[in-house]
């Protein structure tokens, strides 16, 4: 059993991608309409540490430029006895947007907190940018979480490229390629590569992928999820 991957999986907001992301693990700056709701269940399976985790993520559009996000991980099997992970709360505010006939470029700030099972809050701050043009989308984010008592500070970055594979007037298929890093004070940075596929049809996305640690323990995590837009 490897404690570090388990801790990383349980640290809400670090291993699970926010629901409004169109990348598998990266944040996204694309809008959610006012009063719109998105729910994303995401199952992660780490065979090396024998841990399976289901994270339920929710996003709500306060306005065209403001979004609230919540994520709650739950360990389905494996691990050290803890089931419920830390609750992650995020507020995303769009600072700038440039819409064109073929896409959009947007930049947003992220702020929020991670709440552990004892109710202690650790503030987190970040930024995300999205560039969408024709069949390409690129998302980039950087987020840091403050240290609290014995919980060390942590940070992450993600760079995601999604490419639309088909051009018919039918369900969209996209390939996903992501590079990410997860840093924890005292534990260094784990670089990760993610490959995946998404199928988008109207208000439903079905997606899956593989996350490979490029250094450290070289763990592999499988992802399977869906998104529902209400």
């Amino acid at each position, binding site marked *: 059993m490897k404690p570090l991957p388990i801790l990383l999986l349980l640290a809400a907001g670090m291993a699970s991608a926010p629901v409004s992301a169109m990348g598998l693990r990266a944040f996204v700056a694309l809008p959610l309409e006012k009063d719109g709701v998105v729910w994303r269940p995401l199952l992660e399976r780490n065979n090396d540490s024998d841990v399976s985790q289901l994270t339920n993520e929710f996003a709500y559009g306060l306005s065209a430029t403001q979004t609230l996000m919540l994520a709650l991980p739950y360990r389905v099997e494996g691990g050290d006895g803890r089931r419920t992970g830390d609750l992650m709360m995020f507020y995303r505010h769009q600072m700038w947007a440039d819409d*064109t006939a073929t896409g*959009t470029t947007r930049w947003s700030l992220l702020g929020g907190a991670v709440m552990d099972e004892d109710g202690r809050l650790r503030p987190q701050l970040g930024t995300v940018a999205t560039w969408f043009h024709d069949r390409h989308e690129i998302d980039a984010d950087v987020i840091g979480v403050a240290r609290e008592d014995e919980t060390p500070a942590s940070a992450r970055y993600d760079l995601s490229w999604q490419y639309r594979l088909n051009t018919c007037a039918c369900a969209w298929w996209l390939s996903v390629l992501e590079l990410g890093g997860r840093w924890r004070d005292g534990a260094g940075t784990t670089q990760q590569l993610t490959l995946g596929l998404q199928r988008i049809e109207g208000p439903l996305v079905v997606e899956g992928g593989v996350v490979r640690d490029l250094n450290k323990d070289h763990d592999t995590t499988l992802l399977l999820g869906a998104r529902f*837009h209400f």
Partner: protein
Amino acid sequence: MVVISFVVARLAGPIGVWLGYRNAWRSIMKQLGVAKGVALILAWCLAPLAWSASAPVVEIEVRGLTCPFCVYGLSKNLGKAPGVVKADVDLEIGRARLELAPGQAPDIEQYKKIIKDAGFTPGNARVQNEEAKP
């Protein structure tokens, strides 16, 4: 003979009245029949005209569109606007198309506000009148 004449004379009035009513009734029915026929013919001729009353179609350019998942909310909210029968958002050409109920006056400003509330940028709008389908 006198009695017969008396009886005929006494009955002539009522019979005459009855005949009068009968003739009047027949005359009225004849006229109604003609009127009914005319009404039916008019209805048959005018019905297609009623069906082909114009239904406005509004097309609005939308900038910043991305994927079907992201624009789903926009399609849904445009479809809920008063008088909108059908709303489609075409990602390929960057345009929202709204079919309105016959006789419905388009509210361009409201549609543009819905597009902005969805996080996109509305552009030029155009209104066409198309024949409503029966």
